[in-house]
């Protein structure tokens, strides 16, 4: 970008240099001139409804709003004349006749703030201390700044019932001032279109069509509206009464492979809320419901394991960590490596993964390793890796002219990818969707094709063929895929920047390998870029750290050679073992029968199989580290709170067990010491570069690892709706996720019924 030439304007008799193409309000803020405003907000298109940011500009009639008026060279602006002050007070008075103001104009106002001692005498909604936004309310601040001390107009209390039927946040439109921020963020930033102004004039309300609930209206529950609301009209269920947070800690979400940045709100050493970071380069603040709302409920869940426990004939017995280490060491030492199976979660941090693989190889003598990704993909893993390890970055969507999404829906996950695709479609890119049921991208798509996953490969054949002929002539099978396939491919044929988004539905579909192969054809022959959305958060880190069978630390990272030969050790994952050790993994469906089960995780799964030893682990807001997203960027995890009860980090636990077993030289005191060793052992892993890249992998035996005729059939997990963390379905822990899941199940069922 070329540097813009600054222009000179006068604000309140002071000449200042400002960027061109900004509004007076932005110019004033850049120069520390305060102008009150309620409807304007950075990142949102300007609106000009609250009328508080009025100013006087020489040459313009009346009082233009500074949030909508662009600066011009030589402009003379006055922001604080007596007339403006008077008018602002009058306008604010009017605004407050639509908003309960007992917290603003009360005889005890000052004492109340200081001592919080005022009797809570007013009803729930109109009340002073009963507004969920108390102390965070922008109106309170503005009333102070504008200097309003009383209001003379009657209050129009609208008497709406508080809407509490949707998950995650409540809506009390009696507090709404119709500033439209929520609508703008929902439509212009998230491209979701759940919120709209309804009716007009004094009857104006905000919400979805036909008095539907947000769930019915296709709300993503991304909470963007809640974050921007200046009043208490929209509030997060879990944190509404907490008030202002003590601290904010920026970290990376580990619920999926996107790698969104989160701003954890911490109070009393607890994560109470999570906010997006609109300035982040990875996700631009476009986080999904899981990142926005699921974390406080997950990390503070009463289901969490609080202490080490061992199973006795009469139930679980709480033991000390020392006892737990002794027990684990004893059990692990007592069996041959071949009788052990260690299952490592791809949702651990790089540091945990590094320690885990070292533990497996050096302490346990290299027993078989397993991972949910290996189990889910089975013998198709090599094709999957070929796609996922070389994924394009999300910003390729910014310049894409054609986008094809396959089995992808970003309503409840992968939102930065979905929104980038929607944004592209809005600016004119051709968006095409392929899936088995409705996707949230359908609305903005040029065409959407619906069919059983088993037919996707066939469709992609026809699609590629039609593309090659630029939509001209008759394709085989175009009739079968009724719709405007030829039109679409014709529109796409002129484009040189095409992106395919492969969603998790592909991974969990029957005949996925054929789909993988077709996608590779688009990539290798037609130059399409591929973005893979998948739930295995730190899969890249797992392979980089070597916490994967047959892969040594750093072995797959680019090192000058063109390709590497890789053989996956063969394994029968259904064969009974003497001991299974689950490291941060809660999926009992992927483990074989065993005599002894060590369960190292934060929350118990709902399963008939009771673990023999439970080692409680901390979760990502509780211990630092790094993780790598699907774009292969190295992202940091920051510690926001202390350990939850007696839980500990995975690396810490494994280090201690190794110590008891007197094997390997584990001298890790903290994350730094692990990171130093990673640096030493994996010279290609340069954290400073913030990115890793893989060499081409030549799989021996085509990546087939399942022993003999073993077959694994993972349960179908079609979309982000059913996401789990460390093997525990979010719906098990987070109430709102359960509601969403149930809704999704029933609506997709009725969709199928309708078909």
């Amino acid at each position, binding site marked *: 970008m070329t540097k813009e030439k600054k222009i000179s304007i006068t604000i309140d008799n002071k000449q200042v240099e400002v960027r061109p193409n900004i509004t007076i309000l932005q110019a004033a803020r850049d120069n520390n001139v305060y102008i009150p405003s309620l409807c304007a907000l950075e990142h949102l298109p300007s609106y000009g409804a609250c009328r508080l940011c009025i100013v006087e500009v020489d040459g313009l009639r009346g009082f233009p709003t500074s949030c909508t008026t662009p600066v011009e060279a030589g402009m003379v602006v006055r922001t604080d004349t007596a007339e403006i002050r008077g008018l602002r007070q009058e306008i604010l008075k009017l605004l407050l006749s639509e908003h309960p103001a007992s917290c603003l104009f009360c005889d005890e106002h000052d004492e109340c703030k200081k001592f919080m001692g005022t009797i809570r005498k007013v009803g729930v909604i109109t009340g002073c201390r009963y507004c969920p936004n108390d102390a965070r309310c922008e109106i309170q601040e503005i009333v102070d700044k504008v200097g309003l001390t009383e209001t003379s107009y009657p209050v129009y209390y609208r008497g709406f019932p508080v809407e509490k039927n949707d998950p995650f946040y409540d809506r009390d439109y009696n507090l709404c001032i119709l500033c439209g921020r929520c609508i703008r963020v929902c*439509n212009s930033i998230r491209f979701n*279109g759940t919120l709209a*102004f*309804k*009716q007009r004039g004094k009857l104006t309300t905000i919400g979805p*069509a*036909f008095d539907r609930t947000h769930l019915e209206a*296709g709300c993503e529950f991304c909470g963007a509206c809640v974050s921007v609301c200046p009043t208490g009209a929209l509030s997060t269920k879990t944190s509404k009464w907490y008030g202002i947070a003590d601290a904010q800690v920026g970290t990376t979400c580990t619920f999926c492979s996107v790698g969104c940045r989160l701003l954890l709100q911490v109070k009393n050493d607890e994560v109470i809320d999570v906010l997006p970071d609109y300035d982040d380069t990875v996700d631009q603040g476009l986080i999904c419901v899981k990142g926005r709302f699921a974390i406080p409920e997950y990390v503070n869940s009463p289901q969490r394991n609080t202490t080490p426990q061992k199973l006795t004939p009469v139930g679980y017995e709480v033991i000390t960590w020392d006892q737990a280490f002794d027990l684990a060491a004893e059990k692990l030492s007592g069996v041959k490596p071949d009788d052990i199976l260690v299952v490592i979660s791809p949702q651990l941090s790089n540091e945990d993964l590094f320690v885990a693989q070292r533990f497996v190889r050096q302490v346990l003598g290299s027993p078989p390793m397993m991972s949910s990704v290996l189990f889910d993909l089975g013998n198709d893993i090599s094709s999957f890796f070929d796609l996922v390890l070389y994924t394009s970055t999300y910003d390729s969507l910014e310049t894409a002219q054609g986008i094809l999404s396959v089995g992808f829906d970003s309503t409840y996950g992968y939102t930065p990818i979905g929104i980038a695709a929607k944004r592209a479609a809005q600016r004119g890119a051709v968006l095409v969707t392929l899936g088995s049921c409705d996707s949230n991208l359908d*609305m903005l798509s040029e065409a959407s094709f619906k069919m059983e996953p088993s037919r996707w490969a066939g469709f992609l054949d026809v699609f590629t063929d039609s593309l090659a002929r630029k939509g001209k002539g008759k394709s085989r099978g175009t009739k079968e895929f009724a719709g405007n396939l030829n039109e679409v491919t014709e529109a796409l044929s002129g484009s040189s920047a095409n992106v395919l988004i492969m969603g998790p539905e592909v991974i969990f579909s029957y005949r996925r390998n054929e789909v993988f192969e077709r996608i590779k054809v688009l990539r290798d022959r037609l130059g399409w870029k591929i973005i893979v959305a998948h739930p295995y958060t730190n899969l890249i880190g797992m392979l980089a750290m070597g916490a994967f069978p047959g892969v040594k630390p750093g072995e797959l990272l680019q090192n000058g050679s063109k390709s590497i030969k890789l053989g996956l050790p063969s394994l029968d994952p259904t064969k009974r073992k003497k001991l299974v050790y689950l490291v941060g993994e809660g999926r009992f469906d992927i483990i074989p029968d065993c005599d002894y089960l060590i369960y190292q995780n934060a929350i118990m799964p709902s399963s008939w199989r009771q673990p023999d030893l439970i080692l409680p682990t901390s979760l990502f807001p509780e211990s630092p580290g790094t993780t790598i997203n699907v774009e292969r960027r190295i992202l940091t995890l920051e510690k926001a709170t202390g350990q939850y009860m007696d839980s500990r980090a995975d690396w810490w636990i494994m280090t201690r067990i190794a110590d008891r077993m007197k094997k390997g030289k584990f001298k890790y005191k903290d994350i730094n010491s692990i990171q130093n060793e990673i640096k030493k052992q994996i010279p290609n892993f340069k954290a400073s570069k913030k990115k890793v890249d893989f060499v081409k992998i030549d799989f021996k035996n085509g990546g087939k690892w399942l022993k003999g005729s073993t077959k694994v059939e993972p349960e179908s997990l079609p979309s982000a709706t059913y996401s789990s963390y460390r093997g525990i379905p979010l719906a098990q822990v987070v109430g709102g996720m359960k509601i969403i899941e149930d809704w999704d199940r029933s609506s997709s069922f009725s969709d199928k019924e309708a078909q």
Partner: protein
Amino acid sequence: MPEPIESILAKHDRKQEELIPVLQDIQKEYGYISPESVKKISRYLRISENQIYGVSSFYAQFRFTEPGRHSLKVCLGTACHVRGGATLLEMLERSLGIHCGETTSDKRFDLERVACLGCCALSPVVQIDKEIYSRMTVNKLTEHLKDYE
């Protein structure tokens, strides 16, 4: 048999600017905008159902419930107001037992107020279906209503 929504849609480009014309065509054909038609419009014009509802509820022209058999429009333009249009509306509200903008439970009448029917010299006027009744009084209107079943 009204024209299917799909064929109404096909007459328009897939652009947001066509939204209001599409809604007008559908209302002309069906008498109102149903949730089902909003869904179809949404897919065709690539605008969310909620936004479509937001736009359509802004304009006085669109209704979302099935209309009654007859529409009663009381003119409350300036001239009609001065000559007692509001009294007529009040009388109708009372005798039909509905408020302005509603439909009687037997679906016989819709009651609406309009800003001006442009017949100021004949005020006050009431429009029943396509017929305009001029110089209305409470009594005359009651008589006229009997002609509509």
